[in-house]
């Protein structure tokens, strides 16, 4: 290769590298539009956790009505997302945050990152869900952690579905239940807290020791429990016909089936003291430069269009009294009549000690 050939190749290589860099640059967002041109839509940044979901047309409706663009951020699981917002208090990551639940409520309020906003739509939301009197966090949806059972499995063996928490420690139900590790999984923690509230500080440990002795299996998270261990979720390869999951899992089992089933393979087993209610909140972050737009987004989340979209997007229940539930929910996932609720200050104060005690029992 002579000198000029060498140069030409070197230039070609550098050019190729530049093209790649520019190509990647195209993915980077355009710089946010500063106020200036009146017609340019304002950008609202909405932060949430990984499970947040919404329909395209619902977002489009908000954007069109408010001449705005909504940018979503997913910041990890509910706990991680909240911690990040607290850490970035000085320069907020977003204008609005959705996804503080009642187990993290006191941590969120203590960090003083949300500004109060008394949305007029709150009149359509049940008062018992409005846990923050100052309206810094406004309730959007609710869900229930409960047991799911494999209907066919129990029917084939002529074994009745468990009727009380005590049934789960009966030898007839040995090796049937799989639960999530409460240290790493939110349904796992919810179920543990339900049993603590039900049995009380003095007796819950004895109950869990008995569950452990009766073969309750602990796995890391919901996916491992539901898809690897639960007989319905795993398509038959798992060995556990009882799982800690959500009341909305049965309708999902039917809606996302491949065999056209018209009835879910699983059924909710709502035991007294075995159902935990979660409520999720939205709040406007202090320091936002889009206060008016952020308020309209909060109103929008509480209004019927967004609320009607909630069930089939996030598989939880809307809180607005005027919202309607899809038929599959009404038929296979009615809201439980009673559910355990634990004050978030109690949770924050005891979480570490409960988890410590629980691990010691389960490791015995």
């Amino acid at each position, binding site marked *: 290769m002579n000198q000029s050939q060498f140069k030409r190749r*070197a230039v070609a290589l550098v050019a190729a590298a530049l093209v790649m860099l520019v190509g990647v640059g195209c993915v980077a967002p355009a710089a946010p539009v500063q106020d200036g041109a009146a017609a340019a839509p304002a950008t609202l940044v909405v932060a949430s956790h990984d499970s947040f979901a919404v329909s*395209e047309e619902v977002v489009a409706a908000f954007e069109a009505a408010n001449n705005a663009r909504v940018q979503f951020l997913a910041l990890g699981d509910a706990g991680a997302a909240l911690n990040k917002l607290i850490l970035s208090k000085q320069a907020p990551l977003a204008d609005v945050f959705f996804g503080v639940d009642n187990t993290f409520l006191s941590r969120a309020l203590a960090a003083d990152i949300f500004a109060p906003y008394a949305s007029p739509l709150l009149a359509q939301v049940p008062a018992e869900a409005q846990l923050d009197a100052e309206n810094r966090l406004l309730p959007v949806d609710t869900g229930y952690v409960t047991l799911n059972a494999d209907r066919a499995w129990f029917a084939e063996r002529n074994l009745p579905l468990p009727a009380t928490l005590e049934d789960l420690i009966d030898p007839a139900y040995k090796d049937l239940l799989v639960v999530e*590790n409460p240290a790493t999984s939110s349904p796992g923690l919810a179920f543990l807290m339900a049993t603590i509230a039900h049995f009380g500080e003095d007796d819950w440990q004895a109950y869990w020791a008995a569950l452990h002795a009766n073969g309750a299996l602990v796995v890391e998270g919901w*996916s491992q429990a539901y898809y690897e261990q639960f007989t319905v979720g795993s398509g038959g390869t798992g060995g556990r016909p009882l799982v800690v999951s959500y009341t909305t899992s049965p309708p*999902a089992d039917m809606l996302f089936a491949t065999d056209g089933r018209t009835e879910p393979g699983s059924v909710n087993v709502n035991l007294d003291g075995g159902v935990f209610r979660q409520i999720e909140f939205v709040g406007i972050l202090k320091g936002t430069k889009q206060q008016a737009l952020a308020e309209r987004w909060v109103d929008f989340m509480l209004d019927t269009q967004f609320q009607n979209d909630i069930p089939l997007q996030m598989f939880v229940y809307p809180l607005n009294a005027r919202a309607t539930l899809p038929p599959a929910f009404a038929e296979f996932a009615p809201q439980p009549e009673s559910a355990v609720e634990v004050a978030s200050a109690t949770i924050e104060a005891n979480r570490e000690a409960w988890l410590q005690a629980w691990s010691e029992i389960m490791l015995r």
Partner: protein
Amino acid sequence: MHPVTRIVRGTIVLFPLLFLAIFFVYPLAAILRLSLAPEGVPALQPVWEAARSGAVWRILWFTTWQALASTALTMALGLPLAAIFARYTFPGKSALRALTTIPFVMPTVVVGAAFTTLIGPTGIINNWLRGGLGLAEPPIQLMNTIWIILLAHAFYNVSVVVRTVGGFWEALNPALGEAGQVLGAHGLRLFRTVTLPLLMPSITAAGMLVFLFCFTSFGVILILGGLRFATLEVEIYRQAVNLFNLPVAAFLSLLQMVITFAVMAVYTRVQARASLPLEMRPRAHAPCHSGKLLHRIVVGALLLVMVLLLVAPLLALAWRSFTLGGHFTLDYYRELAVNRRQSAFFAPPVTAIRNSLIYASAATLLSLLLGVSGAYVLARPRTLATAILDPLFLLPLGTSAVTLGLGYIVAMGAWRTSLWLVPVAHTMIATPFVVRTFLPALRSLDPHLREAAAVLGAGPLRTWWEVDMPVLRRALLVSAAFAFTISLGEFGATLLINRPDRPTMPMVIYRALGQPGMLNYGQALAMSTILMVVCMVALLLIERFRLPGEEF
């Protein structure tokens, strides 16, 4: 020195240092400061309490010994495989080598599912053994034991050994071995006295990388280890995310980094001393063709068993993606392209593949630039500066991802939500691999060749291009393959900084696994299978890549 040369040299030194300073040192310092001294005053009471309780030290002890044991197991499985790939030619070699790398890119949730499907209590092997032997209890009980952790670590990291050691081995000058043979050394003795010492730099480099991976292990420990086991990284996550106890999380991160740095400092010192110019070959020389049938059968059988061990769990998953629910179906692949819920965050598989490929290309380019210039800095005669820089280049791999992620949130200002951060974070993880695979090859370059080129009138750039590059090509390709696969499979950091409307393949898998229903589970399996195929194709293409002017 010519001014242009000086500018080029200056850039080579400054670029990696600046990158490390901006994307590693600065965010890390910011989060550590905020955690340990929230109001500007050190608040060390919780740290003191944690340090005095035995728990931290027990976790540290477990972290260290499981990493050592995992590294030993990985080396024991990886070295024979590396030897076969380096010394023999056989049909389908590149395809098999690419296969051994696939575990490396699979997200832990998927590998967890694969292991449960294969060797769980109601998994394929246990059911088969129970049926065949008429046993009441599943004979293989590995779940939630230390063995499954070691096995999973080996499963992930064997390809690191195969690629680093195998790549180096292939390029060794066969004349050295032949000289040994002439001098009367054969078989094991030849290996022990000639080949092994020559390979040592790449073996220790591979060992170090594997050790670091296992030392900071997170997903494997949580998902497969169960309640009994916690590494420092798991404890950092628990403290930072669950308990929001930032001082203790920061203390543990520092502890993890100090240990990593100390181990790396010792290693890089030994490594720098041990290396010598070796006259590497520009391309693989004609490897052994053993005429003996028996020899061939043994090598072939060994290869087959090893590859099967590595690939079987993943094949089990791929199989399920077509058969979930009892009969053969393509439904799950079709469903990937359907936005059934009209979700605003839906991405058809082609888009997810494109997102993944764009990020991976950018990360590969960046980490090659960084890693290669970094390796050139480190290959210079040893001074105090290189003695510090050498372990520093490895440090990102031994740093808590949770902590660094929080550091980005605190320190990155307006960049925090920029899509650019995704390839930057991947580059952070991939660069140590590039440095470590490139450096042994670079150090073994014979300086006489460059001097000869200079005497013959070649400028520094041309010397680099025509003398260094052909010899280093193999190391460069191995580095590129590492960087690309790391980015393709990276999941933890991506999830923290990527946008929900730009999902990568691992993000699509994770999302599908978060919702009940057979179609969702099937989609996760289908996307995992697609990820395997994309990874395989990309690796084969990288292996085929030729520098302009190369003739084959």
